[in-house]
């Protein structure tokens, strides 16, 4: 049993270098379950790299990465996939798969290559389809859907994976506002109602401020600051992060910070 103190990701001096360039310098932080963490920063600040390291898509060049107290490399593929689900920045083409089939792919870490598919798997798929609101086109080919609908299908796959941690790399970049809100609301719901640990890389700092429990800001591959949105999203903070003069005002409905460029 993992103690509450050990739960979550722990990064200790993690760095990543490739092709002669260092993309991340000695980042140390922890990510606990049950919270939605937004990763923000300018282009090239290492946001996606950080997520890839967390998702074990790449190995760190320096430092230690631990999940639930164990070093990341010590987890087996499937065990890790049962813990962590990852959505890349550009999901691949789904060939000629139907929506239901693609979502069912997310069950792999549970039944593996040879295991029988149980009722549990089927229920999980159904639940995921409902949750992501793609049940209506469960039998259509993924490639025939619009961009937004496809993104939701990929999310459904992640949901079906029933992992403890969700890592989403810019999931809303290509969506319209309504869909952006939908996706973020879903992520938040998953984090709070189900107690999952969600890490989202976002470009839009306003969306990040609204939906995330805490923000991690990177600049030039280093951890700049970390804290609640109200603490990070300030005029000085934003100037630090993005390097341009910005101002912040509280949202009339909920009080969370809304920023704009001066």
């Amino acid at each position, binding site marked *: 049993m993992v103690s509450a103190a050990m739960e979550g990701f722990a990064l200790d001096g993690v760095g990543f270098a490739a092709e002669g360039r260092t993309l991340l310098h000695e980042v140390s932080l922890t990510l606990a379950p049950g919270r939605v963490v937004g990763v923000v920063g300018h282009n090239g600040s290492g946001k996606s790299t950080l997520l890839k390291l967390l998702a074990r898509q790449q190995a760190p060049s320096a430092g230690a990465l631990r999940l639930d107290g164990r070093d990341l490399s010590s987890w087996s593929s499937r065990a890790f996939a049962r813990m962590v689900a990852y959505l890349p920045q550009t999901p*691949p083409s789904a*060939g000629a798969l139907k929506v239901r089939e693609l979502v069912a792919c997310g069950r792999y870490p549970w039944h593996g290559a040879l295991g029988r598919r149980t009722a549990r798997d089927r229920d999980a798929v159904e639940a995921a389809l409902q949750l992501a609101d793609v049940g209506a086109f469960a039998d259509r080919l993924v490639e025939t859907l619009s961009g937004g609908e496809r993104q939701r299908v990929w999310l459904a796959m992640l949901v079906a994976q029933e992992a403890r941690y969700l890592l989403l790399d810019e999931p809303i970049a290509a969506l319209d506002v309504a869909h952006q809100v939908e996706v973020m609301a879903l992520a938040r719901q998953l984090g709070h109602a189900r107690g999952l640990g969600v890490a989202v890389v976002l470009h839009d700092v306003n969306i990040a401020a609204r939906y995330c429990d805490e923000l991690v800001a990177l600049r030039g591959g280093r951890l700049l600051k970390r804290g609640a949105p109200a603490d990070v999203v300030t005029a000085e903070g934003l100037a630090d992060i993005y390097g341009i003069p910005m101002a912040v005002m509280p949202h009339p409905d909920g009080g969370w910070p809304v920023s704009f460029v001066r």
Partner: protein
Amino acid sequence: MGPAVMVLGLGLLAVLLSAQSLTARIEGGSLLGAILSPSGMGELVVHFSWLPRLLVSWLCGAALGLAGVLMQQVLRNPLASPTTLGVSAGAHLALVAATLAVPGLAGLGREAVALAGSGVAAALVFSLAWNKGLAPLAVVLAGLVVSLYFGALGAALVLFNQSYLAGLFIWGAGALSQQDWSVVLRLGPLVVASGVAAALMVRPLALLDLDEAGARGLGVPLVGLRLAALAVSVVLAAAVVSAVGVVGFVGLAAPALATLAGARTFGARLVWGPLIGAVLLWFADQLVQVLAGLYGDLVPTGALTALFGSPLLLWLLPRLKRDVRPPRMAAPVREPRARHPVGALIAMVAALGVLVLPALLLSHDAAGWSLDLSGALLEWRWPRVLAALAAGALLAMAGTITQRVTGNPMASPEVLGLTSGAALALIVVVMALPGADRATEIAAGAAGAFLTTVGLLWLTRRAAFAPDSILLAGIALGALFDALVVAVTASGDPRAVTLLAWLAGSTARVGSSEALTGLVAVVALGAAAVPFARWLDLLPLGAVTAGAVGVDVKRARLLLLVLTALMTATATLIVGPLTFVGLLAPHLARLAGFPRALPHLLAAALVGALVMVGADLLGRTLIYPRQIPTGLLATLIGAPYLLWRLRRL
């Protein structure tokens, strides 16, 4: 290292070798004298033979390099080259056909015939891809199919007319020897003109580095540009092929080497590619001349370029992954799905059963067609039919797995060089131990295929067996082996000609033990593939996604590659290194609507078996008593259908 360093390095070696080959020929004359006013046999030989040959090697190398750079830019694929567009295959076929039909024509207008042939092939490729606006994927696929098809036709003609075509053996392998200046005078202006044309197109072509949408958005006339660039490269390549034969590797390697050496922009590649090509061919040709001595310099140059160009590429391969990311095959293709997959599969099984009957019973002899119900000839037929069935199924399954693992529709056991490795091993055995029996040959081929697999795995281990690396490594290895095969057949040694039939996929020599081995292999290896079905469903989604859901991608690729190698080795040794079924069957199965892994595997195996049994039947009966090798006929049957289906996509 910069490209200049590479050119200088190779050039220096070439100069040294040239000095040696010159000295061997000049016999006391002087180079200057040979150039200006030759007298005495030595100077004459240098003037009329050595010098033109030197220039021809420069010109051809530059032409191929230029053609390669243009093609790879337009098609955005480092695997594109004149050979993969069917240019050399078309030229070869035209020459073979012309030599047989109208010998006089071939004598006078040989180059014109070859150019016409390559033009036809290129036009065919373009027309097939026209619907897609000459999109890269479509062109490359069409080019590959056309190349294989024309290659098969040419091989069939050669097989049946060996006595007439001894000359083409030599030419087929790329022989640069000259005896006057005519080739230089023809090729020179052409290369220069093409270079100028390419220079005029530099800017718009450079924009092709962007996406389609990006380039179009910038006002680049995509279709026209692509057409123009490809036309220039086809003309160049055709001219080279008709002048000196097939020198295949340079068009592929020179642009790749230029990029690897540091020519980043298109403009830089346009300059350095041809230069590297020229130096490469110069070096190879001089090496041939020096090695062979005065006699027997018919180690074809075209074979030699692959012999050292290929290892060079393999050595630089690990750097390829980092320095250059080959553009992913864009354009997701809309694929159909069968409404009743199980029903369709059952129908295919039934079709196979029905086809086996005439395969066993139908006879065509001097007396005409008949059904041989007495069973007297059954002992000769059932091994062939069973072997064809087994080999077709095995190769189809291997091809399915390869295509799914690499996510590249061009992947197949042949492309990965497995069949070439097996073929090479067999050639070594046949030439070194003329009395070797079947068992020895089989063992040798197995060793060859396995060594190739091991080599592939070792070469790509750092890239986690990533698909592009594997393909490129496979192509390089395949080119290496093919070169050796060609070198052997070009020697004119009739023992080598024996190999032609096997290389073309003849089932005529199959014995009962091999047929049964094949059957056992199909059942055993097919069953072994079933547990991997889920991996095969997930891997086409890409390493990222598959890894994200918990597939140990490295291990999965390794295991699947080994399985593929086993299947390929068995099939190759039964019926030779077939060139098409492993590529064709998975496509056809997919086009028939079986996208999920397990049905795809089954359907592909059935398609492969159907095609091969049908080919065996037709090959045995069509032109009795001559037999068309099964593999060859499978290509001839299957390719048009595949081309037709590709159009409709």
